[in-house]
């Protein structure tokens, strides 16, 4: 029964997305547009396009899933549907897993489409297995679900929750090594970047882009991202109270 309630919740979240095709199209098209823009900016410097384009593949699922999760869960909290669900046998983890599963599906589709465009049309090169690019994106999506859930607990309106994006997500991007390799950063910033999950996802994309095969460092990066995701989900679950004021 536990698995069943998770699956129907996942199905319900996907149905909500299906009734909003414009959002889904934007989620798929916008990352491709951004990668294309990057490719045009560095038209004569493909090496730089490769260095910046690969990390962005780790950033897009965080951006997309963080936003949809934080807003969806804020709506659950404010519309009363969460309160109603809390009076049913549905467990908090089942609800959370349903969301994570649905947005995992979304992130996988997104990673598939964006990888196809950037690798197929724009000429981005990965030496490592492309399947792992999708796996890494999926791990980042789980992280996005956890962080979005956490953000939704600290906001009362959609205006507020959207402001958590520049607060929680953008610093991770700036410090991830996209702008400057992390080892060249001032020591304090390097230490902070060590504590941020997106850094490991970006490192992982670098490994995939530069090394053939699967290195131990890549596996470690994926494991660390997953551990952060699990931590964020558990913390997020703690904010889903069965009882409220």
């Amino acid at each position, binding site marked *: 029964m536990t698995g069943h309630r998770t699956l129907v919740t996942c199905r319900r979240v996907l149905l909500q997305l299906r*009734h909003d095709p414009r959002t889904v199209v934007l989620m798929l098209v916008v990352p491709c547009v951004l990668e294309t823009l990057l490719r045009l900016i560095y038209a004569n410097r493909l090496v730089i396009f490769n260095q910046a384009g690969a990390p962005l593949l780790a950033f897009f699922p965080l951006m997309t899933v963080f936003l949809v999760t934080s807003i969806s869960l804020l709506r659950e909290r404010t*519309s009363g549907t969460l*309160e109603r669900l809390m*009076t049913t046998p549905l467990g908090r983890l089942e609800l959370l897993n349903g969301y994570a599963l649905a947005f995992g599906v979304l992130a996988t589709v997104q990673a598939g489409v964006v990888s196809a465009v950037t690798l197929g049309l724009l000429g981005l090169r990965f030496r490592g297995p492309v399947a792992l690019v999708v796996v890494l994106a999926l791990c980042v999506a789980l992280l996005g679900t956890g962080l979005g859930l956490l953000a939704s607990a600290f906001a009362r309106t959609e205006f507020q929750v959207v402001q958590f994006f520049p607060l929680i997500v953008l610093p991770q991007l700036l410090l991830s090594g996209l702008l400057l390799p992390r080892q060249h950063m001032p020591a304090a910033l390097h230490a902070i970047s060590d504590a941020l999950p997106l850094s490991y996802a970006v490192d992982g994309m670098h490994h995939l882009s530069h090394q053939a095969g699967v290195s131990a460092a890549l596996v470690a990066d994926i494991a660390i991202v997953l551990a952060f995701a699990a931590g964020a989900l558990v913390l997020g679950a703690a904010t889903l109270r069965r009882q*409220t004021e």
Partner: protein
Amino acid sequence: MAPAVEFEGLTVDRGARRVLQGISGSFAAGRVTGLFGPSGSGKSTLIRAIAGVQMRVQGRLEVLGSQAGSAGVRRQLGYMTQAPALYEDLTVTENVDYFATVRGGQRGEVLERLQLTEQASQLVRDLSGGQRARVSLAAALVATPRLLLLDEPTVGLDPLLRRELWQLFRQLAAEGCTLLVSSHVLDEARHCDEVILLREGRILAQLTPAALAARTGTEDLDDAFVRLVEGE
């Protein structure tokens, strides 16, 4: 018959305010109990406490023989919040089906009973207020709950529909369901087997609608309420 819900010394604090002030009472299984009182009297808080979603509840509160909010109770509970708690971006059927499957049951005839078959495939965000209220009620009725907690289910509905809903509540009780229905329209008390009058977090009286009229010497329930308050 054993009471469906029993509470003793029930206190609820919200912020610095004591919303329920140590009330005691019970209501019987298989009947329609009305919960009446002005807005702010604690009706929703009592319902939320029984549903197991209210924080800072003190005192004894037993629901269907178990502690409020326990997993066993949740399997048998239908709860309708005051504002329609629905997914705006899902259709009527998708909403009702989701709440039915989460509670381990099926949609059944609930859309027919609430005259929602024509709206079945419409998105909730495109419905009128009255239609939303009915969908919200439908989501509480699915999966044949043993206990139905309905917070102001008839508010804002047209009089004909209101009467039909009360007939439906009576029918559900006849089928063995226990209903607790809150309303601030005292006129609706006549549809109940028993009414609980709540004011400022205290139970003013719990009696049958006929006894209420007899005790206060008036058929007009609003007058009766006023007399009870004045006679305190």
